[in-house]
């Protein structure tokens, strides 16, 4: 019995690791959108984290997000730790509401309402975070606190961060709903198998 518990713990560890790798691969497979500047890229790296969060728990989704960002730091050479941390937080804010609502109510409707909530939480959360933490941190870093004036920050948030995160949430959501409908039976089967 004890042996079984340990097996399923190992299996879970490995599954999260592989989902983290898929997340990184999808992160690099980002596709630039024709109507957005090239540095704002949409990618589907949140999808594996969502799958982990639905099959196991919200925390499992956070772990997959964490692995993706750690891998990215290791592979890309740590040039921009602030951006990586911001990506991690955005991912967590997006997947947590989906997972929490799903585990409470189940079904496609809970996923849709979760994705809508997640998009709002991520867009508003990242705006607040950028306004109070990320932009001042960058400004301090380049030694120009003038950059973090109220007007400059307001423009950056309302014209960049907020619409970008809303759009990202909508696009990932538009992908995830058909994906979930297709994989619903499989996800429920894995849930039952791995619940031990």
């Amino acid at each position, binding site marked *: 019995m004890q042996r079984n518990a340990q097996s399923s713990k190992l299996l879970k560890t490995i599954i999260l690791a592989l989902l983290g790798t898929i997340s990184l691969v999808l992160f690099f497979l980002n*596709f630039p959108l024709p109507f957005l500047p090239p540095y704002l890229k949409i990618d*589907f790296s949140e999808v594996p984290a969502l799958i982990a969060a639905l099959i196991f728990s919200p925390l499992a989704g956070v772990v997959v997000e964490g692995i993706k960002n750690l*891998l990215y730091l290791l592979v890309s*050479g*740590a*040039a921009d730790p602030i951006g990586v941390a911001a990506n991690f937080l955005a991912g967590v804010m997006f997947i947590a509401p989906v997972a929490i609502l799903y585990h409470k109510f189940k079904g496609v409707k809970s996923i849709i309402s979760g994705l809508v909530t997640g998009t709002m939480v991520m867009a508003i959360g990242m705006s607040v975070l950028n306004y109070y933490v990320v932009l001042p941190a960058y400004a301090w870093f*380049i030694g*120009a606190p003038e950059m973090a004036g109220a007007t400059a920050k307001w423009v950056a948030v309302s014209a960049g961060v907020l619409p970008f995160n809303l759009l990202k949430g909508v696009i990932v959501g538009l992908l995830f709903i058909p994906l979930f409908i297709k*994989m619903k039976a499989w996800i429920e089967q894995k849930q039952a198998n791995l619940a031990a």
Partner: protein
Amino acid sequence: MNNALIIGQYVPGESLVHRLDPRTKITVIFFFVFIVFLANSVVSYSVLVIFALLSMFITRIPIRFILKGLTPVWFLIVFTFILHLIVTNKGTVLMDLFGFSIYSGALIQGFAISIRFFLLILVTSLLTLTTTPIEITDAIEDMLHPLKKLRFPVHELALMMSISLRFIPTLMQETDKISKAQASRGVDFRTGPLKERIRAVVPLLVPLFVSAFKRAEELAMAMEARGYQGGEGRTKLRELKLRKRDVMILLLFIAVVAVLLVTRNY
């Protein structure tokens, strides 16, 4: 791009920096990032620049690899410099350019911040240039060991990181294979209108997830068949060992910090 993902930025070599214990390198670089912000004078900046350039030459990595690592931040460095020229107005006016007055203070400050940037990027990229991702993972596992007492799953985290790193090439190949298979059936997520492209990603992801779970089950079974029982009492193929050269480098680094603290404000 494939190659960059598999080994990261690592450039193989036999230099002193390559052979250092990864824990030594991580420690030195971690503290270097902080002390860069302490430098505030010509002498203290020079100390750091000499230390960084010396480390760079010791690695014997061709300059073009190092410059390649700097490309994403060139723009930021130049942008910061120009920003300072425009915004800062300390010191005396040096010249008038298109109605802007360029102050001597701006030139100095812009230059100092650019050097700071350059130092940070150069030194952190020396870590990934001379250390494989797996070595860094091993070192981090070892350095986080004390957190085990707080029930933080250090070993599981390191296991996940090494499995993930190992499977990057495998899963990249698989993604490529599946997307080609779908493209041959006319499903292409690289072209067409946005809605079509999003829809085309679904048949790419489904087999990817299903096969990842199969792989995970096989790997878990294989590990247990070989007697894997978690981190306790597990021996290692790659043992980390502090050597004399590591102690020397740490002492040298402490000396650099001391000199920096003394020469501050000069």
